[in-house]
């Protein structure tokens, strides 16, 4: 028997209407999606492709026009499913008059956490998202965007959820923070959680996701594992160290003579993120 998927949509349609009920925007047009337990799933797509709508439908913030949505085997509008999910919205919509600690305590109480258990959980999460003691006592209106994202992520994890939905989780974070969040997401998978994330930052998705779906104008255009989707099957790449210019020229000639086209032999490039992280790491070690 197959395990219950973390989320499942069946011919999901969402049409936004105006005040009089007339259809205005067809956000999703028959989306079929299955997110397996324990994977990190990425939703990609340009603006207006339906990523956030899909996420809101999974959370029960929106009602589907047609089709069905199930999360952890329950209907999306079932409040009880929320016991096992965590959600980080695209912006941290939190109460600006509460401090970081009060925010986590408030959300913790909604899950029935009390006393020492709540204290321990709040303290652990604040450590996890690296909010220092001073920041914990400040109201959220004084937080920078990065700090707001961190406290937002902490509130999404307050209930130790099985399924975490992250909408643009690295927005507003510096590269170090981005890396930390990505590491955190990968560690979530190691702990057996399911993660659904949507992002514009393709590098983020590429780094952490097992599978991705690409949505365009409310329809799924691609679905599969990252490795398979990114594999360019009609191009070969050779990598080697200590290659002399003569050998490079000879290899190029050999390839051209044997019928290969668009031959290009050059040095590999690191990503900008890798460069930035290396500089920061060197700075810290010095």
């Amino acid at each position, binding site marked *: 028997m197959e395990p219950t998927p973390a989320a499942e949509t069946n011919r999901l349609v969402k049409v936004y209407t105006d005040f009089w009920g007339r259809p205005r925007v067809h956000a999703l047009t028959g989306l079929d999606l299955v997110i397996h337990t324990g994977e990190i799933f990425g939703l990609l797509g340009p603006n207006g492709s339906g990523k956030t709508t899909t996420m809101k439908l999974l959370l029960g913030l929106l009602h589907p026009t047609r089709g069905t949505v199930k999360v952890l085997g329950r209907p999306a509008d079932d409040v009880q499913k929320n016991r096992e999910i965590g959600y980080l919205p695209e912006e941290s*919509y939190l109460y600006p008059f509460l401090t970081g600690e009060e925010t986590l305590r408030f959300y913790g109480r*909604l*899950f029935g956490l009390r006393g020492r258990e709540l204290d321990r959980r709040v303290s652990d999460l604040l450590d996890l998202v690296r909010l220092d003691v001073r920041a914990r006592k400040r109201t959220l209106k004084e937080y920078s965007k990065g700090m707001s994202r961190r406290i937002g992520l902490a509130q999404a994890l307050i209930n130790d959820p099985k399924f975490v939905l992250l909408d643009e989780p690295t927005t507003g974070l510096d590269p170090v923070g981005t890396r930390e969040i990505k590491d955190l997401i990968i560690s979530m998978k190691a702990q057996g959680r399911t993660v659904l994330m949507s992002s514009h930052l393709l590098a983020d998705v590429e780094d952490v996701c097992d599978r991705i779906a690409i949505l365009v104008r409310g329809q799924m255009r691609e679905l599969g594992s990252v490795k398979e989707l990114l594999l360019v099957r009609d191009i070969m790449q050779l990598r080697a160290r200590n290659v002399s210019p003569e050998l490079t020229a000879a290899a190029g000639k050999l390839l051209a003579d044997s019928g290969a086209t668009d031959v290009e032999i050059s040095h590999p490039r690191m990503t900008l993120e890798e460069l930035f992280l290396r500089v920061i790491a060197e700075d810290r070690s010095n």
Partner: protein
Amino acid sequence: MPTRPSPQPPAPPRPVLLPFLRGLADDLLHFSPARLWTVARLATSEALRLRVLGLVLLGLVAVILADLSTRRFDPVFDTMPSLIHLAEIIITVATLALAIFLSTYSLPRELTSKTIFGLVTKPVSRLEIVGGKMLALVVVLFIITFSLGALSWGYFEIRARQIQSLAGREWKLQQDNENLPDLLRREQSYRLPTDIGGSALQHIADFGPLQAAVYQTPSDPLTVVSFPSSTSTEWLTGYPGHRANWGFDDLPVDDFAAGKVHVLFQVAFPERVRQDETLRFLGLPGVTDTPPESARQVEVRLHDELSNSNWSDTFLLGPDGKLDLAIPPPGPNSRFTYSGGRLWITLCGAGGPAATRLGVRDDSCTIRSGDHTFSSPCGLRLVAPFNLNKYWVGGGGETSLLLARTRFPALSSGRFGPAGAAVQVDVALPSATNIPPDARVGITVVNESSGQTKIATFRPERGAAALVPLDRDFCSGGPLAVYVYSRSPAVEVGLAPESIRLLVGDQPFFANWAKDLAMIWLAACAIAAIGVALSTVAGWQVASLMTAVLLLVANVWLPIIHSVERYGVLQSLHLGSATSRQLSEAYKTLFGFLGLLLPDMAKLDYGNLVASGVAAPLSALTALPAGALWHVALYSLALVLLGYIFFRLREVAR
């Protein structure tokens, strides 16, 4: 391998009703008071961070300014009632305005700032969110109302000390001046039970002005008795306790057995049938020349004193006010038998208080048996509450006419002060007539257990109540019956439900003030419930405007809505067809529903009584709060549930 999904046929439309009902049941099943309180605590702290507590200080400044800028005719007697009334108005306005603002602001703000995402993605039902918002409002409004009330109370105390000192000076002046005008003496003639024998001025000088009279609640409501003559017409109002009686003696028993006896009623209707006072006052279509069916419904009761046989049924009077009724009434269920004793025939309206206006006289009820016609004097009994402010009785030319009676339960000795208790009788006098010098009203108080009787006679005067002091021995041990008689032939006096009272002591005014604040708080809670329900479907601007309009309607127009429900335009058209009757029923249902949507603010109107209850005993404060509490609690609960249903159907993200 990556997959490219192929297009699928469209899914069927999403079912709405069943998932909604399932969700509703689920929300009720998993309702958690702890989560409700968590949401409420956050909303409370959000409201308090909006600096609403500043309103408390602002309100106090307004009370002080209003007090200082108000001129009084008599500083000793007028200051505290008017100050209390001003403070009550200021607190009411501030609290209601705050209730409208906060109730319509909180939820829409959560939606616009999207903090609602953090709530609805947690295991918090929409019921807990809406309920939590309401609970927070209840708490915040309580804090505001009672903080402002407590500060105002402090100011009252300061002013009360000034007035006490002023009263002391005036009392000394009055003692020294034997030529004080009678009018002034009369104005100050209220005596309080702990201090029977002294005047109100002395009482204020001794105890201060912040004392409230305490009354014993009667065990029987006030019954006003009236005897119309053969020429004048008395009007039955349709309250259950308001009925006309005719007693017949020496009726032929054999004719009863032979079924030859008929009772004939001839009742008058007003020239233009009064359908509703408010509508008539406003000049709206509320009156008609032809009495509608509801105005013609009557209940007839028969009682044979000798056999103790009873019978009653409802009938419809003819449009001319006539009814011919054969007795014993035909039908298998009729068990009435006449055995020759006095036959009492009672008539009362059955169309409801607002519908009935039946004019009766002595000759409105006659009995015909063969060729003989029997008639009898008519007696009217009117049990409070009645729909008129006062009921005018007496003046029938008799010198010992029972006008009213009431009864109070036995008092324990701890219930009244060392001076005993006092019966207070406060009758009204027609404003346009001079009071004859020989006008007298008699009061008889009977201790029904010991049989002791106390009789007093007084000359009715405007603005002065008569007090019959009762010492401790007289009061103890048994229920007290109080009778009021007319002792002069030409004077007609007005009686209201609170005309006969038993004063048993006075207590610090604080209790009444607290009750008044509780009423203001409850009214604000009812308005907040409207605001919360509306804020689940509309933005805060629209919701606050609608709440303010509904507050106005609840205060001013609810009686009109009830009137239209009862006597709508369609009823006055008197369309005969079945369709128009159905239309009329639908119309009544609609207006009945509209009436249900609004809180009955009359139940919470308490201020006048409290302000009057300072020194002049007029408060009827004992029974109100519990009823009001239930009314507001049930109303608020209903609206919270309505708001929850709206909110459950609503998408919180677009």
